[in-house]
């Protein structure tokens, strides 16, 4: 008996230290390498701030920082302006096809932004389908979408769903009696929206807009694709690292460190604001949906479905293109339809489909197992080691994907652990990037399970491991599974670190699309993104089947 107890003790002890070891090896060590590189002169090997100085002294570089801010802030505002009314109308009024609408909104956020950028270029670019159509029929040339406005369009249509999800989640917790009370005091309609509803949702709007901000700041596929001369700093990092001319790893590291510091500042501001503005709501009677007047009803549907249609247009157009006939090389679209793009894809690039399943599948499995263990350690076994693990697990929140990629390459390009080019390094980066979200949601789920459940199992003679396996994990599973599907979708559309880490043996769908698209219009790219989209839709439907209330956490 004593021995068994000791062994159980040892299990968590070992788990703690194993996890700590993994974090040290795959996160702390690589990041410290990047930090070191950023302040060391590449020729003399001595401490030097020349890269930092270089960044802030040349407009070519520091302007990218300003550009990034401009993009992130405007995208944040635009996403709130689009997403908040949508959430409000969706929650307050009867909308036809509610479930489908929600699914479509979520779907529009779930492809890599660069694919959207690519499709928008095909639609509105210089030779885009819509551009040409308007030119031939009206003789009018629409303003070009390259640069800032294109980036804003792409990112807003990708990121407003975040605001929608956060705000409709908050509205779900607003008690109907609050609205009735304000109506009672003569406050209704638009006035009530601004004086009662909006303030109640403010914490969520704030949280969502900062989330949008951070994502827009870190995204680099979009500006690379549609920005043309408009450079943001993730693009600079990428160019400095693997660009065609004048790469400089130390300089790339310096920019990475700057990026981390900036992201950290915003993360802290978000923490501070949301702590200050948080209040808890839980509705006994949730809002009752009303039927709007005929005119109102028309505009509500117009708005809701209009937004969704615009956001999904690029993906739909890609599907359409994937069935078009192409030239033999697959590069030029011709009149008529065929399945040739798919044939080419399956004969040449079946590997990337398999890679996606293999690499993302393994990453997902590791994420789930680690997240369960870590959340258990953090919630049920508080001690110093586990507190350290808890803090470490939050770090990837503030590390842009490109930086994760760079740090891993720099650190594992050695004879002892030669991981560069392997599937392992891809898996590691995916785990690092996604695991904080899974840990947070597992911690939330586990905190909901009262300790007395564990104690009940124990008093009924179940050991600690048995309790974990038979009671705790099954109780968490529902929530974890729903979260896992969301993780799966983010993993298969991950780009910013995979693009740095892939080799021809580990090329995933998303990377394959990117490399093809970067070379120009291509039927195969369209076919691949259609396949990727199918994956996503299937995952979403699966999610809807398994999640209790269709509640989605991102």
């Amino acid at each position, binding site marked *: 008996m004593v021995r068994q107890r000791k062994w159980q003790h040892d299990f968590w002890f070992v788990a703690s230290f194993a996890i700590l070891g993994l974090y040290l090896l795959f996160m702390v060590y690589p990041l410290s390498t990047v930090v070191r590189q950023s302040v060391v002169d590449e020729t003399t090997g001595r401490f030097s701030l020349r890269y930092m100085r270089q960044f802030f002294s040349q407009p070519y570089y520091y302007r990218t920082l300003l550009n990034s801010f401009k993009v992130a802030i405007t995208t944040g505002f635009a996403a709130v302006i689009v997403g908040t009314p949508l959430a409000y109308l969706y929650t307050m009024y009867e909308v036809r096809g509610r479930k489908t609408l929600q699914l479509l909104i979520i779907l529009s956020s779930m492809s890599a932004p660069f694919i959207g950028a690519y499709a928008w270029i095909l639609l509105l670019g210089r030779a885009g389908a819509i551009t040409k159509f308007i030119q031939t029929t009206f003789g009018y040339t629409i303003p070009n979408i390259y640069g800032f406005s294109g980036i804003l369009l792409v990112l807003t249509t990708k990121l407003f769903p975040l605001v929608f999800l956060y705000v409709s989640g908050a509205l779900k917790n607003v008690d109907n009696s609050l609205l009735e009370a304000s109506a009672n005091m003569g406050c209704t309609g638009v006035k009530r929206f601004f004086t009662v509803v909006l303030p109640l949702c403010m914490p969520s709007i704030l949280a969502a807009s900062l989330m949008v901000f951070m994502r827009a700041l870190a995204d680099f596929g979009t500006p690379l694709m549609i920005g043309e001369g408009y450079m943001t700093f993730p693009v600079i990092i990428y160019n400095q690292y693997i660009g065609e001319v004048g790469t400089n790893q130390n300089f790339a590291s310096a920019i990475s460190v700057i990026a981390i510091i900036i992201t950290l500042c915003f993360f802290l501001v978000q923490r501070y604001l949301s702590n200050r503005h948080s209040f808890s709501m839980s509705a006994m009677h949730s809002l009752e949906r009303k039927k709007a007047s005929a005119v109102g009803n028309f505009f509500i549907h117009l708005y809701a479905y209009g937004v969704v249609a615009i956001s999904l247009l690029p993906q739909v157009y890609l599907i359409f293109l994937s069935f078009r006939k192409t030239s033999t090389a697959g590069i030029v679209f011709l009149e008529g339809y065929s399945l040739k793009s798919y044939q080419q894809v399956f004969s040449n690039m079946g590997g990337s489909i398999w890679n996606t399943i293999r690499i993302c599948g393994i990453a997902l499995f590791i994420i789930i197992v680690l997240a369960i263990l870590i959340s258990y350690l953090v919630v049920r076994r508080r001690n110093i080691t586990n507190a350290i693990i808890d803090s470490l697990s939050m770090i990837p929140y503030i590390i842009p994907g490109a930086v994760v990629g760079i740090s891993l390459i720099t650190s594992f390009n050695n004879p002892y652990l030669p991981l560069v080019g392997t599937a392992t390094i891809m898996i590691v980066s995916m785990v690092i990037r996604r695991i904080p979200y899974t840990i947070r949601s597992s911690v939330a789920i586990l905190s909901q399970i009262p300790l007395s459940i564990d104690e009940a199992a124990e008093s009924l003679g179940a050991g600690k491991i*048995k309790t974990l396996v038979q009671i705790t994990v099954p109780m968490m599973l529902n929530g974890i599974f729903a979260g896992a599907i969301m993780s799966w979708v983010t993993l298969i559309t991950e780009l910013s670190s995979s693009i740095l880490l892939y080799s021809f043996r580990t090329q995933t769908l998303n990377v394959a699309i990117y490399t093809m698209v970067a070379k120009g219009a291509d039927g195969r790219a369209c076919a691949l993104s259609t396949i990727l989209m199918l994956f996503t839709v299937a995952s979403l439907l699966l999610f809807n089947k398994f999640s209790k209330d269709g509640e989605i956490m991102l």
Partner: protein
Amino acid sequence: MESWIKIRNAMKKYGDFVAIPDISLDIARGEFFTLLGPSGCGKTTLLRMIAGFNTIEGGEFYFGDRLINDLDPAKRNIGMVFQNYAIFPHLSVRKNVAFGLTNRKFPQETIQRQATKFMKLMKIEEYADRLPEKLSGGQQQRVALARALAIEPEVLLMDEPLSNLDAKLRVEMREVIKEIQNRLRITTVYVTHDQEEAMAVSDRIAVMDRGTIQQIGSPKELYQRPSNLFVATFLGRTNILDATLYLSEDGNGLHFAGGYDLPMPNLKNVKNGQRVAVSVRPEELVIKEGEDVGRGKCLMAKVVYSTFLGLNTHYIVELENEKRVEIIQESQIYDIIENGTVIGLTIKAEKINVFTEDGLTSLVK
């Protein structure tokens, strides 16, 4: 009476905070023993020490002759019922009840037979294959009880098991618990802050306050002969009156303000002129009207208001020193005494309790 659970000088600290300084207890085999006290007095803490979920900072805990201080909770052979039931939501009722049995590696057949037996006993057999979330609070409580009992534990521990139920179900379930305990004769430690519930189910009650035991006794002893003012006020309702003791040739007694003297033959350790606190329960006061009323013959009071509750009528009256006192009288067929009426009160001397002025010691033999 064979003592089964023995606690010797138990001490519990949370960090620097001493939740329980020093408790010793003996609980007999088959006894229904209750820990009663206000919220935060350490009942749960003590119970969890018995269960093995709390560390023990001092003292010894025995089941029979076996020291259990370092025994794993899983090995203590206890059944525990939690305040929030702690039913496994992903397992059917049957699997919940059978859970403890499966951990003991009984043959499948035995497990099923035993589970069915206890589901029948708790009258939840018809829900056997449902998930618990579909059940009402009372039914969930039955599942929790069946699950705890199915392993035929040596000790049953219950922490405020009824506090999440509504008033009516609470009364119903406490009858169920009492009856099952009577039938199985399983040693039970029950925690509650509800004194009525404690009196309804217990063989003996330990009244606790701030981590210490104030008194242990049967419900009747505790109610009628509380050993200090805390117990007197915590169990049942009571009025606390100030009085002075007098000792004389004809016998001792209490002298109340307003000139009312009450002979009390059953006092101990008393001094002449000693100030005391007298606990008089509402039913220990008798209302006098007409002839018998007068200074010196009784306490004078004025009716403030009354409440008719069917069986009894409650009067709130004000004494001459402006102290308010509650009286419970069996309802009479004639009219309720009107507000403002001046009445006299006498006291049933054999029932009341007298304490030192600080309330710590009883002066009744």
